């Protein structure tokens, strides 16, 4: 599902955010991406979601070489990736329903299918019944779950989460992680960037650790390098 081969990211100011990254995540796997802030977690996720392009080496996502995805095709490429952000990136002038429905509206689904899928998605994150409320009235944990519902509503094969529990207390963080586990169990590939080490230790998933832009540790060496 995700394969990095000698991928590097150097920014225009000369800073090397990522250097010679090699790893492979098969479809359906769940993994954590850790490291200090500035170690390159966000840069790595950005390369996968094509928010940025690698300076050298190659990044394959969902069977596609990201270098070959044209600017015009990027929106369609991103529709196969559900992205979850630390700050949720919800639209506060729209209801929970409208927020979650947005990817389906963009994809041009008929209205009744949208309603069905949005409810199913909200059900999965335990927010059924909150469709008509506005995100501002929800707690941080609930807002994050709306973000997750939006990310999974069009059933993408890949989920990326960037510090999804950054602002949540341990209890809520665990809930969020369990939601990710559920998706992983039904075959979705899940990559979670986090520095919440206590949480990671309690879960039996692959660990990728970045240090100063290099892949420092991979708990799953056997499958790394594919």
């Amino acid at each position, binding site marked *: 599902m995700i394969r990095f081969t000698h991928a590097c990211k150097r920014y225009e100011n000369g800073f090397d955010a990522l250097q010679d990254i090699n790893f492979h995540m098969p479809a359906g796997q769940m993994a954590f991406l850790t490291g200090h802030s500035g170690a390159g977690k966000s840069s790595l996720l950005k390369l996968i*979601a094509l*928010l940025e392009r690698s300076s050298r080496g190659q990044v394959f996502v969902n069977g596609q070489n990201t270098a070959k995805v044209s600017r015009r095709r990027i*929106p*369609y490429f991103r*529709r196969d990736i559900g992205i979850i952000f630390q700050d949720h990136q919800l639209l506060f002038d729209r209801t929970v329903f409208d927020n979650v429905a947005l990817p389906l509206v963009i*994809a041009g689904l*008929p209205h009744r299918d949208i309603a069905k899928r949005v409810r199913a998605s909200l059900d999965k994150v335990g927010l059924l019944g909150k469709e008509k409320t506005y995100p501002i009235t929800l707690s941080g944990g609930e807002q994050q779950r709306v973000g997750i519902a*939006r990310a999974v509503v069009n059933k993408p094969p890949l989920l990326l989460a960037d510090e999804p529990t950054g602002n949540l207390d341990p209890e809520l963080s665990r809930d969020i992680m369990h939601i990710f586990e559920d998706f992983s169990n039904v075959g979705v590939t899940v990559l979670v960037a986090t520095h919440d080490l206590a949480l990671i230790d309690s879960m039996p998933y692959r660990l990728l650790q970045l240090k100063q832009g290099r892949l420092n540790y991979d708990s799953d060496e056997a499958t790394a390098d594919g």
Partner: protein
Amino acid sequence: MARSNQPQLGIVASLRVFALRHLQVFFYSLGKMSRQPFSTLMTAAVIGIALALPSGLHLILKNAETLSGGWDGATQISLFLKQGVSEKESRLLEKRIRRLPAVEKVKFISREAALEEFRQLSGFAGALDTLQENPLPSVLLIQPSINASEPEAAKSLLTRLEYYPEVDVAQLDMQWVKRLYAILETIRRGVLVLAILLALAVLLVVGNTIKLAIQNRREEIVVMKLIGGTDSFIRRPFLYSGFWYGLFGSIIAFLMIQISLFTISGPVETLTGLYQHNFSLMGLNMSASLILILSGIFLGLGGSWLAVGRHLRDIEPQ
């Protein structure tokens, strides 16, 4: 192999979705604007004034042309006949000229009548009495028909009349008609220049409004791009906003013109009545109104297109 869960739609279904989406955004953008009625109205009013100015001037010009069509009667050709031509021959010539299609009216002034007129108007009555014979020629005063009143046509009529053997001198008095046409032409050019400048102003007003709207909705645009919104999907509501601004602006312009016309039509009719003209002000006809509305819409769309092209690309998720 790529695995995708995106729904696959047939061509017909895709077209339906496409049309439906456009319709949704069409009214969505209208709803968005109606939530800020005051600022929407302000922008539309600015556009309206900018459109009303050249349209109104155009209308004044049109009316002036109709009015000057009435004044074209003042274009006159004077045929001074040779001294030897008798009154009978003159009458015959008068009849022949009257039959010309380019001629509206002919008036014969005999030598005697001319002398009498001169005596009355010149104040040289005494001097004239000392003359043994009448030095004045007979004159035919010719008024060209409406079509032949324009400078070029009148001139060719003049050339034709000069060829009659009875005619000594043919004179066309149209200096002031030429001046009037020159003035109208100048104003017409002026209106054209003004229209171009104001069209540019409308483009900029709409462009700036849309630019602000884009900046206000920056976060929304970022989110859309993050979850796979295509450029055209994100662009669409802004383009439709431009459409609405143009439409509202041109409707406002239309109303302003009609109300202004209604306000001045009374006095204008009194005025032209005093000049014994049967004249009523022309309003915007169907095709002119349509052109006004369409150009408003075109400029609105154009302005938003410019703004969207310039500013939407700059907004990328970080």
